[in-house]
């Protein structure tokens, strides 16, 4: 699905990623954990196509395409989805109107015909139920006046509507209470198939109680320094990140 090789990236001259390697296959869930400042959100931003980062070396292959060659919207149309850590409020742009535009631009890109209004509304009903998002919220302005939990559920709602090949959840658990966490996790689990993949970026282990990863990676100082199964998350929760740092230094 996605292969990242030797990725180096910097912002304003400061190196953040320093030779990151990662391979994610269809049907897999990967968790990327790590201390603050390790480069977790930078990785998410670069995958989504934020332009403020400079890629100084490395390559990213996304399903046979050179991801770094694609614009932000082309990546989305090819099936990449980022659930934002801080979803943006856009007063005046209705959630469903913009999603309909997005879906139809994606379909046009794939050479498919536009979705009918009826089909679209049925999809909205179906997918908003999945994340228990009030259908009134679905038709309001994007994230305007939403609570923290509603914003995160709206991210997963959008993910469900767009049905991506690869979803990247950037700190989706931050600011969620336990009920919202369960709802969000349930949504992600329901959407999982053997054709798609998920990368969960998180500082804490608790989301991984609900979404069971196949692999856990530790990102430290711009590189993945340790990879193991789901038990690694528990070990990190118990011991913190210091033992990784020490191991790294030694």
């Amino acid at each position, binding site marked *: 699905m996605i292969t990242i090789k030797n990725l180096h990236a910097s912002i304003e001259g400061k190196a953040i990623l320093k030779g990151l390697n990662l391979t994610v296959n269809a049907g897999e869930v990967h968790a990327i954990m790590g201390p603050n400042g390790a480069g977790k959100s930078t990785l998410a931003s670069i995958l989504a196509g934020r332009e403020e980062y400079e890629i100084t070396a490395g390559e990213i292959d996304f399903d046979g395409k050179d991801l770094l060659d694609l614009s932000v919207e082309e990546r989305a149309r090819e099936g990449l989805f980022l659930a934002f850590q801080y979803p943006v409020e856009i007063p*005046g742009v209705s959630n469903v109107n*913009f999603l309909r535009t*997005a879906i139809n631009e994606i379909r046009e890109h794939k050479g498919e015909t536009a979705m009918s209004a009826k089909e679209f509304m049925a999809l909205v009903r179906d997918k908003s139920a999945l994340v228990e998002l009030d259908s009134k919220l679905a038709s309001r302005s994007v994230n305007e006046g939403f609570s923290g939990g509603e914003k995160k559920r709206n991210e997963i709602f959008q993910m469900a509507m*767009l049905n991506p090949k690869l979803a990247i959840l950037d700190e989706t658990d931050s600011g969620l209470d336990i009920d919202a966490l369960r709802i969000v996790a349930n949504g992600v689990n329901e959407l999982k198939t053997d054709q798609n993949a998920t990368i969960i970026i998180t500082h804490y282990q608790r989301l991984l109680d609900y979404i069971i990863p196949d692999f856990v990676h530790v990102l430290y100082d711009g590189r993945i320094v340790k990879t193991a199964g789901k038990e690694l998350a528990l070990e990190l929760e118990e011991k913190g990140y210091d033992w990784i740092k020490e191991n790294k230094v030694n």
Partner: protein
Amino acid sequence: MGTSTKATLQSFRSNLSAAKLALPSVLTAKNEGDLSVMEFPTSKHEAWKYTRLNRVAKIELESNVASPINWEDFNMVKDAYTFVFQNTTCIYISSDLPEGISIKIGNEIGSADWLSSINESHVAKLNVAHAQNGCVINIAKGVQVDKPIQIIYITDGPKQPNFWRNQLQLDAGAKAEVHIGYFSKDAIDAYSNVHWSVFLKENSHLIMTKIQNDGEANFHFSTENIHQLKDSNFTLNTMTLNGAFVRNDLLVKVEGENCETHLNGAYVMKGNQHVDNHTTIDHIFPNCNSYELYKGVMGDKSTAVFNGKVFVRPDAQKINAFQSNANVLLSDDATINSKPELEIYADDVKCSHGSTTGQLDLEAVFYLRSRGISEIDARSMVVAAFMHDVLSKVASNDIKSYIYQQLAVRFNLHLQRED
């Protein structure tokens, strides 16, 4: 250059014909004398601080002989009582006017038909001196006009000067919707100067919408003097979509209690375009509300001026006056000068004003793009969202569609109708 601007105003006038409309002596008596010693105002004049008239002063105006056109090319409203001026000629008059609306055009208007409404600006004085054509409309007492009245002005030909003078009066209890469109054809360096005096008698209700869609190389000056008597309700939507240079001077005198005044303005500019909105709401009587919302989007090297004055006279207690001007600059070279001015001499009033200027919300654009929407559509959606509230104030669906269509053509801005 030490050239006197006084000479410039006179040379600017040298090719202009004297007024053809019969105007009352209260307007004309001093006018020529005043003009003969007047200069084009410079940036030293507060009202023209950010709007330079050099480009206007240099134009050598000349009248064109216009060839016949199909006015329907400029139509904005499907079903309306329509009047069309092409340069100084009235080329179309709706024949189906109902009882209760009277309209006089050009030489049908006698000097006694003009009510007193004086404006001291050089623009207004030029209008008095050179008014070639126009209309006087009266809506009789209690008449609710069943369809909108549409007046279309077309400036045709290069360097064409057009001076139109108009008056609209709503008698007590009357209700009307008037849509006015300013357009041009085959025109560059054309100059249009339009004056409206509007009188709302007791308990009358008027919605006026101005569409300013002159060509990109033309100069347009628009003056509105509004007089509101008690219990009247007035809305003026000023929609500036095109033009090299557009100046709007609005003066609303609220001369009675329990009035409502709504001034809405939208301007969308690009290239080197310049738009200047000067508005004054003069609260002379107590217990009135005024609401003013102006919003602009400025691209490229375009410039805009907003100057909104609100006067609350000493006896005008219990006034609510709200004013807001918000701008988005799409480029580093675009400029807005925004200045609210409140002068309040009464002590029991609620007045507020706010002015904001910002860049397009790029985080919002990125968010939309990350869902698969093209950059151009994402930007357009964010701009449209910004303009949405002011455009939604335009009550007429035909006019709204017209504006949306123009924004789509000129700016690739796609607004979604909610209804």
